[in-house]
């Protein structure tokens, strides 16, 4: 493969090295430090930082604005964009806005339903779905066209990503769904947090059987548990999350004060095992409101130092 955009993330993946990405959630207020401080902590240990887009449908500082803050610090970001809140006019407009700041990565998502957040009585949009957003960015980039057919002056140069959840149901279409996203034009994938490694490896095997691992860069998603309570919560309350009983037991089996360390251990072991899984091209470390642990996880996972000159 050869690179199609100025994205550093794309260059690293193209060079065959394992990539590392992480993510930061913007604040529920307008203080830019809430985002710049988090970014400062992790920037030397990751290749790009995702900025979430009103995740779990809770209103926050905009993803695009936060990406610009990172850009001004010289940090590469990935603009997460959900189709829940914007129609095709707003989506394309924000893509151009991001491109005008040379933000080179985008992650196309459907977004959690608004009933989970602070505005359950609000409208949703869903003019496009995530698959169609992928197609839209590719159309804008590769053909230099708007969805309406007109030409774009200085088209966006974005490396196009999407999420994949190997653990959602029905399992039999999880690999076909990946194939579908690839057909839509996705170039990198960040997966749902992986705790059920056997199931993930089975998904990867099926993806390999279809040669999909050669058509898209798959970054395995990992999230450290801070506590046994969090493990239980993720198991029982978060839709589409697969936390096996033995993982919950392992967390609950250590004294409370040691649970954070145990959570990090599990995360590092996951990285070590999945490094051996053919088709895994990097890791997406989502340390939710625990960014200070990202450097340790990356170092202990044997993913440090990050490549410098490319």
């Amino acid at each position, binding site marked *: 493969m050869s690179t199609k955009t100025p994205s550093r993330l794309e260059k690293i993946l193209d060079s065959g090295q394992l990539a590392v990405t992480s993510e930061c959630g913007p604040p529920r207020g307008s203080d830019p430090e809430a985002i710049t401080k988090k970014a400062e902590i992790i920037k030397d240990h990751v290749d790009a930082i995702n900025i979430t887009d009103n995740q779990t449908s809770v209103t926050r500082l905009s993803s695009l604005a936060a990406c610009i803050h990172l850009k001004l610090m010289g940090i590469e970001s990935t603009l997460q964009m959900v189709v829940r809140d914007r129609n095709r006019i707003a989506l394309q407009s924000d893509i151009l806005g991001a491109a005008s700041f040379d933000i080179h990565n985008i992650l196309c998502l*459907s977004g959690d339903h608004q009933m989970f957040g602070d505005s359950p009585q609000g409208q949703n949009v869903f003019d496009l779905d995530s698959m*169609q957003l992928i197609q839209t960015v590719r159309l804008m980039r590769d053909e230099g066209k708007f969805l309406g057919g007109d030409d774009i002056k200085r088209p966006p140069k974005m490396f196009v990503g999407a999420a994949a959840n190997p653990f959602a*149901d029905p399992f039999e279409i999880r690999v076909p769904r990946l194939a579908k996203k690839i057909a839509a034009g996705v170039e990198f994938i960040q997966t749902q947090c992986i705790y059920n490694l056997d199931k993930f490896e089975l998904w990867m095997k099926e993806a390999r059987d279809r040669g999909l691992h050669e058509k898209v860069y798959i970054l395995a998603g990992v999230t450290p548990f801070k506590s046994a309570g969090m493990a239980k919560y993720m198991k029982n309350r978060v839709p589409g999350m697969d936390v096996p009983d033995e993982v919950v037991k392992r967390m609950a089996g250590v004294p409370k004060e040691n649970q954070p360390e145990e959570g990090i251990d599990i995360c590092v072991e996951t990285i070590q095992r999945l490094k051996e899984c053919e088709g895994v091209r990097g890791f997406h470390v989502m340390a939710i409101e625990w960014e200070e642990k990202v450097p340790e996880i990356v170092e202990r996972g044997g993913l440090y130092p990050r490549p410098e000159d490319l």
Partner: protein
Amino acid sequence: MIVADKKPIEEIIDMVKGYRKILILGCNECVTVCEAGGKKEVAVLASALRMYFMNEGTKIEMDEITLERQCDHEYLEEIRNSMDQYDAVVSLACGVGVQFMAEKYFGSPIYPGVNTCFMGVTEERGVWSERCQGCGQCILDRTAGICPISRCAKRLLNGPCGGSTKGKCEISKDLDCAWQIIIDRLKELDRLDDYEEIAPIKDWSTERAGGPRKVVREDVRQ
């Protein structure tokens, strides 16, 4: 059918208090089937209101009529001669009927007696659920006969999302994931390969987004 639900009686009392003579007007179609606005519900509402105002010491007269339909001129005309005697009408038809009444009897106060909810089916007596949002460009041929616009919480044309769990939608354990049903149907029809065809971006101009809609059929027009 169009499914409606009863409005709380307090809301209706609030609307009609102050009037002397009221018509409670039912409809014999959808709202009868979903037991929200047929003859039976007209009678129940009228007697509840009578009781309420009697206890209150207010004198209110109430008539009950149930028309065949409230969405066609010919049936609404049946009450033309008696409309003069009423100070207000509470229509238990869906929002369509309420409005057609208001348009036809322009000088009369017309109030809605039900909350109109959706187009759907009777799953079992007392349980109705949505099936169609009238998008104006039916795509059921491509989704194994199951509608993702009305039945997927995110209207995904290329679902399911990552929140689909054990056949249920991420927003509620009581709600089936439409995409699980679509996939089960595709399997049953031996068409699972169709799943990988990407559904194109939809033209929503035939839906609500395009403004109020109209169907004009020259072939049946008189």
